[in-house]
């Protein structure tokens, strides 16, 4: 402290004191009003760098959480659709089981068929669910309906036009979760096992593998019957065999001692007398139900065991027929409309008719329901046991599809849970970062208010003492 002060410097000191305290008060007031302790980089360079880095990390975390939120919403919408689909399928299964009951009349079955048709339409609209203009079950081809009825030959089959690509969102560092579900996985998962036959005609799988999806009807046509040696016991074909349906070599056995006649391994029938009613058109069936019409009017009464042969042809598309060779073990047939290539073993074929070939594990839920409707309407007019062969195949496929819907629902749930877990962890990080950011950048209000009050008081003191100082002058006493 200098020993002497000048008048000017005392004024200057008072002024400086006021200025310093006013600045301090202004700073404190600024912090109180903004709630921030760092308002510009120069306030606290280390704090600024820290707060920038924290803001950046916080923005990243919030970005992830935003993505998680949208992602979960999308997953949940998918789950809702699949949940409804699952409920519909449960209902369809019950309806179909009713329909399988042999006592039901055609009208009752038609009613069930109509209900299943409606269910199929509903399922289609669920599988083509749109959220914000995008189809959520189409993979990344989200701008067109993924499931469309589309087959070259007009057969009502639904094909998947989407893809299996995943739309992923990043919900945490390096954690990407798919938020869409391939429609193929949910409604038509491809897990081909075997090629199944309804068992009407005795057709079986060939040697070479089959390629394709869905199901086909194979038309096995009876063209003619070769009577073999039946004339030796005075028998003849009715109408030249035009109404027969047997195919391949069938052994006809007539046992006059036991009084039976038997075709292949079919039920033995009582031998009719030549004069019996109906002897002119006696119908006998083999184990597959293939029919052979015989004229017993000229029957000699002798025993007989010989081969009767049904010649026929086969078609996969209902228009192009290929003659059947009954020694063929790997017959290749290709349906150009569906692209399916199938291989058959024709050695056990014994009956003409429309055979259902099921590429099991590849029939999507819509085609399965379509098949059910076709079965219930029974356009081929099959008898009940034959129909059940088809219906069993449908039921297996329905259950598989139902399982897939459930599985997909589970996958969506698991993903949603995964997002939630990531989000919860990030919520913690979010809070922590916000806390850190607040510690770095935000003013400690109580502290700042205390500072402000202190600055205010100091300013008042400075004003008071300053006024005192500059008011005292020797002049006051020089009178």
């Amino acid at each position, binding site marked *: 402290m200098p020993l002497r002060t000048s008048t000017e410097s005392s004024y200057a000191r008072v002024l400086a004191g006021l200025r310093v305290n006013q600045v301090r008060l202004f700073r404190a007031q600024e912090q109180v009003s903004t709630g921030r302790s760092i308002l510009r*980089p120069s306030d606290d360079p280390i704090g600024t760098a820290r707060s920038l880095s924290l803001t950046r990390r916080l923005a*990243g975390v919030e*970005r992830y959480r935003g*993505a998680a939120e949208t992602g979960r919403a999308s997953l949940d919408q998918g789950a809702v659709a699949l949940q409804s689909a699952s409920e519909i399928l449960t209902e369809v299964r019950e309806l179909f089981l009713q329909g399988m009951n042999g006592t039901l009349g055609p009208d009752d079955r038609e009613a069930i068929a109509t209900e299943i048709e409606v269910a199929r339409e509903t399922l289609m609209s669920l599988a083509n669910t749109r959220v914000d203009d995008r189809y959520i079950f189409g993979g990344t081809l989200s701008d067109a309906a993924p499931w469309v009825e589309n087959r070259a030959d007009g057969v009502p089959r639904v094909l998947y036009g989407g893809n299996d690509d995943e*739309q992923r969102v990043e919900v945490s560092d390096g954690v990407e979760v798919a938020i869409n579900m391939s429609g193929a996985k949910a409604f038509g998962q491809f897990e081909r096992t075997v090629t199944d036959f309804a068992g009407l005609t005795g057709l079986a799988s060939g040697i070479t593998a*089959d390629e*394709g999806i869905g199901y086909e009807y194979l038309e096995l046509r009876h063209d003619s019957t070769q009577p073999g040696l039946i004339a030796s016991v005075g028998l003849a074909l009715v109408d030249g065999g035009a109404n027969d349906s047997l195919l391949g070599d069938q052994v006809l056995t007539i046992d006059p001692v036991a009084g039976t006649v038997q075709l292949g391994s079919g039920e033995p029938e009582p031998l009719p007398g030549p004069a019996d009613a109906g002897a002119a058109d006696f119908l006998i069936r083999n184990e597959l139900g293939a029919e052979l019409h015989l004229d017993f009017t000229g029957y000699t009464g002798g025993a007989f065991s010989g081969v009767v042969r049904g010649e026929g042809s086969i078609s996969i598309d209902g228009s192009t027929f290929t003659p059947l060779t009954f020694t063929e073990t790997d017959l290749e047939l290709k349906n150009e409309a569906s692209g399916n290539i199938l291989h058959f073993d024709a050695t056990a074929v014994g009956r003409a008719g429309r055979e259902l070939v099921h590429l099991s594990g590849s029939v999507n839920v819509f085609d399965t329901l379509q098949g059910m409707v076709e079965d219930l309407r029974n356009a081929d007019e099959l008898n009940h046991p034959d129909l059940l062969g088809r219906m069993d195949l449908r039921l297996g496929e329905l259950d598989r599809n139902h399982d897939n819907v459930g599985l997909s629902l589970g996958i969506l749930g698991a993903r949603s849970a995964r997002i939630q877990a990531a989000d919860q962890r990030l919520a913690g990080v979010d809070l922590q970062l916000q806390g850190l950011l607040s510690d770095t950048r935000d003013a400690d209000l109580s502290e700042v208010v205390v500072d402000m009050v202190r600055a205010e008081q100091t300013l008042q003191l400075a004003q008071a003492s300053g006024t005192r100082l500059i008011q005292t002058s020797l002049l006051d006493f020089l009178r």
Partner: protein
Amino acid sequence: MSIALNTGLRSLLTAQFALETLGHNIANANTPGYSRQKLNIATEMPVNLRGLVIGNGVKTTSVERTVDALLNRRIVRQVAVTGRLESQLTGMTEVEAMLGELDGRGIGSLLDDLFTSVSELSTNPEDSILRSGVGQAALALSSQFNSISSGMTNLQRDTAAELDTRVEEVNLLASDILELNEEIARAEAAGVAANDLRDRRELAFEELSRRVDATAVEESNGAMRVLVAGNTLVSSSRVYELGVAEDVGGDPRLTIEGAKGFVPVTGGSIGGLLDTTSRFIPQISSELDDLARNLILEFNRVHSTGVPSSGSFHSLTGSESVVDLDQDGKLEDELLANSGLPFEVTNGELRVSINDEETGKVTRHTISISSTHTTVGDLLESLSDIPHLSADLSPFGRIQLVADGGYTFDFSPKLDPNPNDAGTFGGGKASVGTAQGPFQLPDGATLNLTAPAGGTPLSIPFFEADFEDINAATADEIAAVINANTDAQTAGINATAIDGSLFLQTAGEGPTASFTIDGGSALGGLGLGALAGSTITGHENSVGVAISGSYQGDGTDVFRFVPNMDGVVGTTPGLQVDVFDASGNQVASLDVGEGYTPDEKLSVGQGIEVSFGLGELSATHGDLFAVDVVDDSDTSDVLVALGVNSLFTGTGAADIALREDIETDPGLIATSLTGTSGDNRLLLDLLDLQNASVEGLGSVTLGQSYGDTIGEFGFELSSTLGALESNGALLASLDQLKQSVSGVNVDEELVDMVRFEQAFQAASQYISVVNGLQDDLLSIL
């Protein structure tokens, strides 16, 4: 008696002078630069009156300024420092406000906003509003860069203008000092102390020092010589004026009359302004420029290989122009690496995919680019050589790419979904393939075939002239020779090269398509000797190969798919398809024999899935197909350099902008690798940039780099503020010291006033007494 009267008079006068001096002091108590003046008094020489020495009263010797010259010099020095810091701070504070960080409109926040908008779009890439959001965010970020950049330019200009003003002020102050020098010298030569003039000169010098750090030397005649960085500014006779000139870098520098070169001034406000224009602004501008440049580079690198959700391109125009650097009127002969493009083209490969819109077939073409050899013309030619694509330069030197009708193109690293279109892998054509080349063929070697089997034999010769090196003939070269052979054409025999292997195929498909390998001297070189004499026939079913997924591995590779034996897909026990990478390492072995359902997807690894349709595979006939996989389809950065399919245009903070046509149509923002609406893989790649360390920024992320810039800037600003504060305190205490020496204390003067008033009264009384004595004496007379 007269002595006594004189003594009284001098006493009276002294008191009067003292009162006048203190009156002057009181009057100037508030005058800046005023130094308190003091009347020096002393006893008058005594009078010797006949041996008696009698005091002769008081005398005034001088009126003196009370100054501490050393202290004044220290103050002047500190004033120069303060001047410098203050002017530096002005520039910095302005920049601080310009950056606008911490209040949500700074580059850091806007960069975060851009990433956030990309993330939002990635959750719903079909949404056009979210897509506009990305465009808006990119626009906001680039505008902020632009506005800071232009703010910097303005600040630079304002600082230069202020520098001119300050220099002018210095010159005026220098003239004042020169004038005062002359007056002081004149006054002091006459023996008069020029106290007030000196005060004024000191004040002028202090003001000058606030502007530029100067030193003062007082010469013997009392004149002050002022030096700036060792150069005379004010001599006893003249002023050497300061001036401003630009150096080679365009930065303003100081000159002084009569001296060569620039005057290195660091102190005073001029020193501060020079620092602001030549160091501070350029430094922070260049850091922002680097950030903007690397941002453009990194975003465009990713974006250029993407596909908008509307699908691949029918045409594209680059946003950067090629410049005729050698000024020969031709643009095509410029090297890509030296054609005025803003970003470096490096050695690497560019992959262009051509998509057939009808069939969905993707054909990928690879163009090698060498930074030292490839010219603009070479690139255009290579691009135009790609079927269904043409490339040329616009009149402005921008590259234009156009696809033929029915075709589109892109630069995506997507996988070819149908890699077996040539039918070299269980196809319907009769087909036979070799191992990987090159092949050693004797000059004039022949390949003898009969096509169809049982038909007319033909012989295809190979001559040295058709090959670069016939001892290392490539599959492509051999295929070209075969396809040019008219006999082969007539017989319907084609050759194809797949991944270095040569394939001979019939044109037709099915069991009736056939040819026989008869022999010929080329057979051994092609490694087909074992097949001599065998007949190759086509198949009823062509094995359909479908690839899906996206490559997750690093770098570039080619996956070769070959069967391990002859057999039928899904039927033959033990049939496998082995997958090898380009170095021959086995990547996967896929069971496709008995138990495999045709068309079932199998995982190859690295994110790739493959399925095989029904058909016959033959290891004996060399069946294979190849899939090239890439993680980056432009390793040369040529797309970035040409500004093709970019997101940002520009090269730095001043000109960074959202690509013009994206601004009007956000649908051009690339979101996918495939062009399907829900594919968001490109957006995820863009998002990866938030955590990617950027080589050009010293291997930190974009956000970190900006944070570092702000951090360093904040440090500098706060340390300048701190220095200014402590300097202010120092200056204040020095000032107080000065005031304690030179300042006027009115109270003190008042006390003196009372003192000298009383002295005056006493002297008057004394004179009156002496006068009374005289009167008494006179009355005696």
